[in-house]
């Protein structure tokens, strides 16, 4: 069996699961951000008085922090009251950061478990060998009530990556390249498994970039094969016992994709689709108005480190707003300690509080008609970050940092 099949079998008490089996799986972690408010409405409608397990539900705020409107403030207030009422143990108010960064920081991503979240980028946690997937608000209310959810066992795609990435070429460039090859529905309903030497040597943060963006080709779950790096990260963050699950040698895949990254160039997803991927040099020279480093995709310490090194002792182009959003409070503190925040501020960047920022078009840096933003985020749909007549390009932290300095899309030197 593949990892997906083995975890679903374990979670549903079955010996064997094959693709397209419908199983009822026990949920280990159930995460919701502000949309817990929508879940709550359905939960009240079901009429169950108590949630199934107050230690397995996570509620946190990251999409609209601090509240950008009265409506959001009311949402936050209602949820704080609900958290108190139910005694939810894992509640992270607006001070902590983005859900997909703080779940691992608080030891809630563990190999072999089933994690669901009312956020599409919940695939991120597959980087820890967790069966992690995004679900809707109504079905989450069912999870709050029963602790279980039905899944159709997915077929799996195995992606084996070998070779060394060139200087300034990162996990972001690799996954954009893969999405460009497979398309926006290239892994729809499927599980993805990443393995190979390149992945094995990657940091945990880089692995999270891969799992995070698999959502943009429709994946249900996206695993990185857990190894000693995974185990030591998880053990540093939790005392809870976990079982590492890896695929069987005779696991069946519907597709196997070998990739050699030796000559991979910096990649960029052009408006208005994440699979509209080109080498950065093909669109170099396009004038930009905003450069954004952050989000659940690329707001981690290593991302800020790369960008800081590039902008140190330099000035952001006068026509560009550089926004920097650390993914979490912990990342923010580390970035202060390392001196990155000072570098950004001195260069003319604007450092915002940890959270989703303008990525989903809620607040904190929306775009006017005709404006262009190059961002380390995960979606460039029409109107995603403000005006439907604006343009969002998705790239690595290095590409965004270089572009912020020149005022136009700029490919990093790879030697």
């Amino acid at each position: 069996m593949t990892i997906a099949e083995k975890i679903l079998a374990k979670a549903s008490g079955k010996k064997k699961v094959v693709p397209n089996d419908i199983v009822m799986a026990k949920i280990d972690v159930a995460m919701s951000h502000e949309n817990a408010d929508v879940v709550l409405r359905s939960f009240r409608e079901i009429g169950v008085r108590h949630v199934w397990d107050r230690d397995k539900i996570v509620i946190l705020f990251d999409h609209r922090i601090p509240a950008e409107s009265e409506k959001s403030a009311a949402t936050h207030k209602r949820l704080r009251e609900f958290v108190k009422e139910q005694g939810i143990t894992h509640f992270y108010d607006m001070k902590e950061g983005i859900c997909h960064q703080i779940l691992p920081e608080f030891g809630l991503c563990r190999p072999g478990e089933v994690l669901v979240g009312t956020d599409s980028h919940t695939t991120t946690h597959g980087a820890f060998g967790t069966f992690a997937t995004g679900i809707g608000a109504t079905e989450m209310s069912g999870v709050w009530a029963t602790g279980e959810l039905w899944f159709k066992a997915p077929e799996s795609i195995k992606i084996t990556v070998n070779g060394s990435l060139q200087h300034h070429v990162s996990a972001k460039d690799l996954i954009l390249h893969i999405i460009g090859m497979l398309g926006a529905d290239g892994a729809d309903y499927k599980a993805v498994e990443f393995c190979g030497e390149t992945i094995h040597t990657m940091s945990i943060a880089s692995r999270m970039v891969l799992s995070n963006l698999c959502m943009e080709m429709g994946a249900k779950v996206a695993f990185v094969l857990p190894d000693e790096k995974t185990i030591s990260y998880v053990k540093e963050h939790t005392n809870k016992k976990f079982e590492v699950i890896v695929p069987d040698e005779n696991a069946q895949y519907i597709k196997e994709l070998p990739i050699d990254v030796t000559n991979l160039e910096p990649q960029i997803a052009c408006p208005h689709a994440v699979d509209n991927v080109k080498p950065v040099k093909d669109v170099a020279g396009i004038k930009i108005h905003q450069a954004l480093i952050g989000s659940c995709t690329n707001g981690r310490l290593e991302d800020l480190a790369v960008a800081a090194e590039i902008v140190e002792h330099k000035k952001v182009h006068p026509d560009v707003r550089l926004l920097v959003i650390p993914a979490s409070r912990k990342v923010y503190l580390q970035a202060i300690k390392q001196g990155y925040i000072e570098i950004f501020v001195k260069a003319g960047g604007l450092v915002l509080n940890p959270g989703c920022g303008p990525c989903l078009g809620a607040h904190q840096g929306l775009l006017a008609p005709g404006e262009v933003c190059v961002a380390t985020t995960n979606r460039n749909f029409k109107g995603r970050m403000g005006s439907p007549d604006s343009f969002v390009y998705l790239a690595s932290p290095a590409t965004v940092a270089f572009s912020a300095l020149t005022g136009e899309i700029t490919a990093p030197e790879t030697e």
Partner: protein
Amino acid sequence: MKKNDNFPRRSASSSASISVSGRTWKFGDDVDTDQIYPGKYLPLTDKEEMARHAMEGAEGGDDFIEKVQTGDILVAGKNFGCGSSREHAAVAIKGSGISVVIARSFARIFHRNAVNTGLPILVLEQAEEIQPGDALEVDVERGIVRNKTQNKVYHAKPVSLLEMDIMKAGGLLAYLKDTDKHG
């Protein structure tokens, strides 16, 4: 509700079949959730208010909400509903009066949200042959799509029993209540 109980199946007799007919609204491939329901409206919680923004960001969707009639049918290409997990997308389409969404394929989370919020959906390989304004007659349960304008009949991909039961109940909450009542 019983704890840790598998979702029992409703008895066939207790459920109404879904047959609809209406005029077609046609959209293209990869219509994402930001086109179906722009992110700026996410704080809305009232379903009627949500419905007023259905398809607002989609190409050809400018006048959708003024002109859509109850019972109309939405037809799209591949990967309809890709992107965010926002359930508002399915809720807004349902609230606009659309009776069924027919697409060549759906993105996974939108698919689940549609089923769970009681918005009927069908996967039809030949969705592209249907033209804007075509009059359709759809038997959702049997997956039969009659195009009265073009005089054609299509068979959609079968829906799993569990999903059909949830759709027929009108969504997951109604289904859970119903199974509780019957079971």
